[in-house]
C-alpha cells in the first residue's frame, strides 16, 4: 500500500506557486514523513528548477508530473494582500479532477500547495476505512468560533473545501473526480442551477456539487466523512503573516470585523491554509531554509 501527498503548482505571471509547493513539500516530509508528488506544467517546472536548482527540487519531490497547460482556460481571480491591496491574475485550477489518475499512490492526500503542514494530524488518515474524505468545517485564526460549516450560497448546499482531500483508488473516488470533471466542463450550467454568483471556477464548488449529486441530491453526508481533524484552519487574504518563529510555529495578522484593525495569533503545530499568496511568497524562502 503506497501512501503520499499530491500537490499542484501552476505559476501565473506574478505568483510563484512552485516555490510555495517546495516549501510545503519539505514541511510534509518533516511532519508526515511521506513522499510528495507535484503536478505542474512545463513552464512552471522549468522556471522553478532554474531559480531553485534541480537538485533541490528533486530533493523536495518524489515525482514531478508534467501536464499540458490549457491556455484557453481563462479564470481570473482577485488575489488580496490584506484589505488594502489586490491584484487580478489568472488562477489555473482546471485540472484537479486529474488527481485521481495522476496520483502514483494507493492512498493519496491531495493538498493545496498553500495549506501548510505544521503537524502530523493528517497521518490519522492512512489506513482509513473511508475511501474519500473531505472537510466542510473550517475555523479561522482570528476569532474564537468553533469549527463551522459554510454554504455555497445563502440558500445553497453545504460547501466542502477541496483544500485537503484524502482518497483511495476505488470506484467511488473515481466517480467523484469524474463528476468534478463534468461539472467543470459545464460550469456555467451548474453555476445557474446552484445559484452562486461568482463566475470564477472553484474546485470547492465543483466538489460540493459532486458530493451533493452522489448523495442523491441531498445534503446528508452519509457517503462522505470528514478528515480526522476538527476543521481546516483558514487564514483569509485580508490578513498577513507576521513572522515565522521557528519549525511549525507561525504568527499571523488577522483582520477583525472593522477594516484595518488586526489581531495577532500564534499557531504552533497546527496546519494552516494561507489564502494570502503574496504573504506566503514573502516567507517561502524562510520556510525552505527552516525545513531543508
Amino acid at each position: 500500500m503506497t501512501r503520499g501527498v499530491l500537490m499542484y503548482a501552476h505559476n501565473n505571471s506574478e505568483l510563484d506557486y512552485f516555490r510555495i509547493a517546495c516549501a510545503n513539500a519539505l514541511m510534509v516530509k518533516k511532519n508526515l514523513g511521506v513522499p510528495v508528488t507535484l503536478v505542474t506544467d512545463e513552464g512552471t517546472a522549468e522556471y522553478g528548477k532554474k531559480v531553485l536548482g534541480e537538485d533541490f527540487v528533486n530533493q523536495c519531490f518524489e515525482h514531478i508530473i508534467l501536464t499540458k497547460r490549457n491556455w484557453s482556460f481563462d479564470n481570473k481571480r482577485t488575489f488580496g494582500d490584506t484589505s488594502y491591496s489586490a491584484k487580478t491574475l489568472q488562477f489555473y485550477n482546471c485540472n484537479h479532477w486529474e488527481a485521481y489518475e495522476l496520483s502514483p499512490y494507493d492512498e493519496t492526500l491531495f493538498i493545496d500547495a498553500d495549506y501548510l503542514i505544521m503537524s502530523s494530524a493528517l497521518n490519522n488518515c492512512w489506513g482509513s476505512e473511508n475511501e474519500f474524505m473531505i472537510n466542510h468545517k473550517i475555523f479561522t485564526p482570528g476569532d474564537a468560533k468553533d469549527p463551522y460549516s459554510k454554504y455555497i450560497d445563502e440558500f445553497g448546499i453545504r460547501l466542502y473545501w477541496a483544500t485537503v482531500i484524502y482518497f483511495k483508488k476505488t470506484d467511488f473516488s473515481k466517480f467523484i473526480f469524474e463528476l468534478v470533471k463534468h461539472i467543470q466542463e459545464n460550469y456555467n450550467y451548474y453555476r445557474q442551477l446552484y445559484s452562486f454568483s461568482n463566475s470564477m471556477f472553484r474546485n470547492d464548488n465543483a466538489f460540493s456539487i459532486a458530493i451533493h449529486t452522489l448523495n442523491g441530491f441531498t445534503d446528508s453526508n452519509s457517503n462522505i466523512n470528514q478528515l480526522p481533524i476538527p476543521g481546516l484552519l483558514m487564514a483569509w487574504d485580508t490578513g498577513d503573516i507576521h513572522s515565522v518563529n521557528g519549525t511549525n510555529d507561525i504568527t499571523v495578522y488577522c483582520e477583525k470585523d472593522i477594516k484595518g484593525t488586526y489581531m495577532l495569533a500564534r499557531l504552533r503545530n497546527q496546519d494552516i491554509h494561507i489564502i494570502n499568496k503574496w504573504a506566503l511568497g514573502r516567507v517561502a524562502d524562510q520556510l525552505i531554509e527552516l525545513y531543508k
Partner: protein
Amino acid sequence: MEDRLQQALAFANYKQTLNNQLHKSKIKAEGQLMFAEAGGKFTINQELICFFDYLTRSGLKEATVLDDNKSPILISNIEEFLKKITTRYFEVTNDYLQEAKLIKKSRDVKSILDIKASE
C-alpha cells in the same frame, strides 16, 4: 477620559487576543485527541476511556465498536488500545494545561504571543 478610554481599548484587545489564543489551543488539543485505529477514527474522551476500561475489566480481548463515523471497527487488542488512548489523552491534556497556564498568566498581547509552549 481619553486615557481611560485608550486603556479600556487596549484591555479589550488584550482580552480578545487572550481568548483567541486559548481557543486555538483548545482546537489543537481537540485535533490531537482524534485517534486512528484499525481504519476507524475515535475521539478520545472520558467516555471512550471508561467504555474500554469496562471492556477490559469484563475480560474481553477483542470487540467490534462504532467509531466517530458510526462505522464498525474491530479492535483486536482492547487492552493495548486502552493503554494507547489513555496515554494520548494525558499527553494532550497536560500539554494543553501548560499552554493554557502560560497564556493566562500573560499580562499583555506581546507576552501572550511570545509564550514558549511545550512542543
